[in-house]
Every structure is written in structure tokens, then in C-alpha cells.
């Protein structure tokens, strides 16, 4: 079973202090730490597990700058066989549609049974690239996959729904599945593991290799253009309790007692 996994390197922002930069169209990135997009980490893990069970090859593809090689090496260390970096200045500032147009050029000539992507990226979070790719390749898809099994050459897929529900689907291969977090327990990647794949070749392709023009990529190949960023406005203004931990705890204890029906 040959699997292609599309990944993205994104900044870790869950605990980072984000500041909007002078252009008003981006955050200041100098102090941000980059790693594999959380959703994609589950996707690569799922691909490697499938390979371990059914055999075959896992190819990991990313679009990004040279520094995205770190994420590809991490995927190789997890067990991917091949890594491809799609990189060109022309690709910058593209949205999901422009990204899918680059990916499709790389993927369309390659044999595959399954394409896995994360359901969304931690930074932009549009959740579009996988499905646009599936449409361009004319293959079936499922979004938000939380369980995946193979049965007689088809994929039995559980898709996460709202309200503690899921739906089960049967999908013919080749197909594209966008993977939701929690589908598996991604393996730990050690520094030693990354060192071992240090010398593995990463195939790099630019716009010319992919037969792409400027009109198809970057901002001109995009449906959307980010014009302004600002900080969200609070719905309520929380009363912030200051002071030493004991003081804050004393105040919280009063609130919990009075509002929690413990009085």
C-alpha cells in the first residue's frame, strides 16, 4: 500500500505570546518555534502504522521554505521512506487553493493508494487543502477521520461529527482522508532518530519542475487574501484575580463556594 502524506510546518502558538507585525497582515515570527502541524503528526503516524501492517511505501510531501526540511526529517525519522520539498519564492502567500494546485502537480504522476492530510493547520485553520486536492485528483475523500481500517481493498472510515457522534463510511481506493487529532498515539521522535536520517536525500521541486506558472500559485493563485489582522474582542471582561497564589486561591475559594452551591 503506497501512501502519500501532505504535511505543513507551523509555528507552535498554543502557549506563545503573539504580536501582530508592522504590516498588520502577519504575526511577528522571530521568536516562534516551528514544528510539524499537530494534525499532520497524527496523519504521518497513521500512514506509518498502515505501512507496518500492510507493507508499501510512505512518501511525505510539504510545501514551504528550506527550513521545512526539519519537518520532513522528523517524518523520515518516524518511518517515512521518501520526502519531497516543494519550494519556490512564487509559492509564498498562497492560500489553500494555491497550495493544493502545487501539491496536485507533484502528486498526479505518482502511484498511490491513499493520501492522508491533517484535517486543518494549526496556523490558518481553513481545513481546505485536502478536499481541494481530492477534487483535482478526482478521487473520493472523507474529512475529520478518527478511525481507519482496511477491509477487502476498501477503507472503513469513522468520521467525527458534533455532539459525541461519528459516522462510518466505506471508501474505495485510491482516496484522500483528512485526519483528525486523537486517531492514534503518535510515536516519540528522538534526536538520535533524526540524526540517523540526516543523510537521506530530500527531493526538492520548484515551480519549473512542477510546471507551474505565477498565475497558478502564491497570492495570484489564491481565492482569498488576508488584508488585516487584529486581536479578538472579549465577549465578557473577566475579573482578573491578582496576588500571590494563596491570595488568588482564597478569592477563588469564596467564588466557588458562593456560586457552586457549596455555601
Amino acid at each position, binding site marked *: 500500500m503506497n501512501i502519500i502524506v501532505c504535511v505543513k510546518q507551523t509555528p507552535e*502558538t498554543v*502557549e506563545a505570546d*503573539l504580536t501582530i507585525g508592522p504590516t498588520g497582515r502577519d*504575526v511577528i515570527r522571530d521568536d516562534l518555534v516551528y514544528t510539524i502541524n499537530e494534525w499532520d503528526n497524527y496523519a504521518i503516524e497513521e500512514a506509518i502504522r498502515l505501512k507496518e501492517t500492510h507493507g508499501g511505501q510512505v512518501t511525505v510531501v510539504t510545501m514551504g521554505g528550506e527550513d521545512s526540511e526539519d519537518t520532513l526529517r522528523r517524518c523520515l525519522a518516524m518511518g517515512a521512506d521518501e520526502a519531497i520539498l516543494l519550494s519556490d519564492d512564487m509559492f509564498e502567500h498562497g492560500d*489553500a*487553493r494555491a497550495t493544493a494546485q502545487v501539491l496536485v502537480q507533484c502528486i498526479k504522476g505518482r502511484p498511490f493508494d491513499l493520501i492522508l492530510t491533517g484535517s486543518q493547520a*494549526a496556523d490558518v*485553520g*481553513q*481545513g481546505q487543502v485536502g*478536499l*481541494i486536492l481530492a*477534487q483535482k485528483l478526482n*478521487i*473520493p*475523500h472523507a474529512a*475529520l477521520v478518527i478511525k481507519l481500517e482496511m477491509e477487502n481493498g476498501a477503507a*472503513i472510515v*469513522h*468520521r*467525527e461529527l*458534533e*455532539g*459525541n*457522534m*461519528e*459516522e*462510518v463510511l466505506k471508501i474505495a481506493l485510491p*482516496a484522500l482522508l483528512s485526519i483528525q*487529532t*486523537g486517531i492514534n498515539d503518535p510515536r516519540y521522535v528522538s534526536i538520535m532518530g533524526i540524526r540517523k536520517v540526516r543523510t537521506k536525500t530530500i527531493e526538492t521541486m520548484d515551480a519549473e519542475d512542477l510546471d507551474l506558472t505565477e498565475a497558478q500559485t502564491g497570492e495570484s493563485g*489564491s*481565492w*482569498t487574501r*488576508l*488584508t*488585516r*489582522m487584529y*486581536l*479578538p*474582542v472579549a*465577549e*465578557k471582561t*473577566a*475579573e*482578573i*484575580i491578582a496576588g500571590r*497564589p*494563596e491570595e*488568588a*486561591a*482564597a478569592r*477563588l*475559594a469564596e*467564588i*466557588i*463556594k458562593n456560586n*457552586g*452551591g*457549596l455555601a
Partner: protein
Amino acid sequence: MGEILVLMESRQGEMRDVSLEMLTLAAGLAAVSGDRVTALVLASQDQAAHLTDQAAGYADSVLTLRKESFAVYQAGEYEEALAALINERRPGLTLAGHTAFGMDFMPRLASRLDLPLATDCLSLSMDGGRLTAVRQMYGGKINAEVQLREAPGYLVTIRPGSCSFGSGQAEPGKVEVRDWSSDPVTAGRVFVKYLETAGGGVDITQADILVSVGRGIGKPENIPLAEELARILGGELACSRPVADKNWLPKHRQVGTSGRTVKPKVYLALGISGAFQHQAGMKGAKTIIAINKDPKAPIFNIADYGVVGDLFQIVPALKDQMKAILKK
């Protein structure tokens, strides 16, 4: 005058709230632009009357497409019908929910029709034929205005809960029901069944006090700290998605859109950043208290009380305080 087409979302014959929220949002847009709003219902024979009535309570105009295979959402069938209908009517704007339903077909539909799409939007504005959407990035820490490329029609998915809806209009909207006869399309994908995700276990929706832990709890060894606080308070332990994803706590304790919706008297969020999916599951709590070391965590935007600090210093102190108070 153009048309705003709003795709009604239902499951097992019941309308989802996001459908009525979108109709409210569309009515607001139409009041400015002069467009007409059409609620689009896809349903089986059995479901059609009920869903059409519900939509007509909120929309001036309802179009219902009736076909047996619309009884459950099937990607291929829905995509074919929507593509055909959009090509026929050429709406200036088509809305669907940013839900497991809308997220599963809108990008594919947009690519097929080559119409610009913006997803997970909170609000929209139309200016001289150009559509601008407000959406969030970086887990809700940043809002972004996004302009869609000029096109004959736009597609947008709307975040659930970004608009409220009232009790509907006195006069129901006008209704058109069409029997939709198209060749069956499986598109390589067949619906098998629905399943409940996390059955059994503790029912956290019944608790008056919830102590809920997020990514900030750090490691599974720290969970007993929160567990003990919950026990002292006579409450239950709950969690956000990352904690359930890592199997540190069972899925039936997860609060949020894909987990449980809770409305306790007190919701104590420990190390939870507060992504909108989480907020949607606990916004209805009477008192929300958040402890988080990031002062910009989105959870503080909906909390009543907040402590910016280290939960590992505050929670032990809080445990001692509560023990002392409750002994009295």
C-alpha cells in the same frame, strides 16, 4: 438583486442550530445588500415536510429538494445536487456551516465550480460586490479579515455559534418543493451507519461543578491533582480535546463540540486555552473560572474570573482553602 443561498444542515431528520444561525446572518447581509435569502433543504420524502416548516419559520423563501438518498449526508449525492443547483441559480453567495457536514464538501464543491471559498468565518460584509470575511487564526488568538477574489459567486462556511437566532418570524416564508431526480452518485463512498462515540462512564453533564483540565496540565501524572480538587468540591473531572486525544482521560469526559455540552454552576478551566470548539461546549456554565499562564489565552475572553498564573501553584493552595472552608 442577487440570491444568498443558505444550506440547511440536519441530522436524522432534525434541523441543526447552525442552520438557523446562518439564516439570521444572511438576513442581516440581505438587509444591506438587497439580496434575497433562500433556505435550501435537502431531504428524503419523510423528512421534507418537517425540515421545510422549520426553515420557513426563519427564511423568506425555502427551496426543498426531495430525494430518498438525501436522508443521510452522502458526499457524492450532495455535491452533485449543489453543483447543479448553483450552476442553475448562480447565487452571489452560498453558505454552509463550518461543521463536520460543511467541512466535508464545501472545499471540494468550491474547487469543482472554481468559486472562491472562505471557511470558518465569524461574520461577513459585502462592499461593491467584494466579499470580506472575518475569521480566526492560531487557535482563536488572532482575528483576520480576508478578502475573497472577485467572482460571480462566493462560498463561505460559518462557524457554529457565531450568530444567535430568535424564535422565528410570525409569517412563514414561501416554500417551493422539488422532487430531485438525478442519477445516483456514490463517488466511491458509501454511508454505513451512525455511532455514538463515547458511551458509558460518568455523565459530566449532570455535575454542578466541573474541574476541567487542558494541555496545560502537562502530563498524565498531574491529573490526580485536578481529580482531588474535583473530589473536594463534590464535582467531576472534565477535560479539553488535547487531553482526551492523548488518552490521559477518557473521551466521555471531553467538553466541546465533538464531546459533551455542559452547563454546570461552576466551570473551572485549568490550563485550557479555549479553542472555539471547547468554548461551544461550556459557554453555558453559570460561572466560568480560568487559570492559565498565557494572559492572551482565548478562554479569558469568555471567563467571569481569571487567574494568570501557574496552575501548579494555585491549585494546591485552592485545595487547602476549599478544605478549610468546607470543614466549617
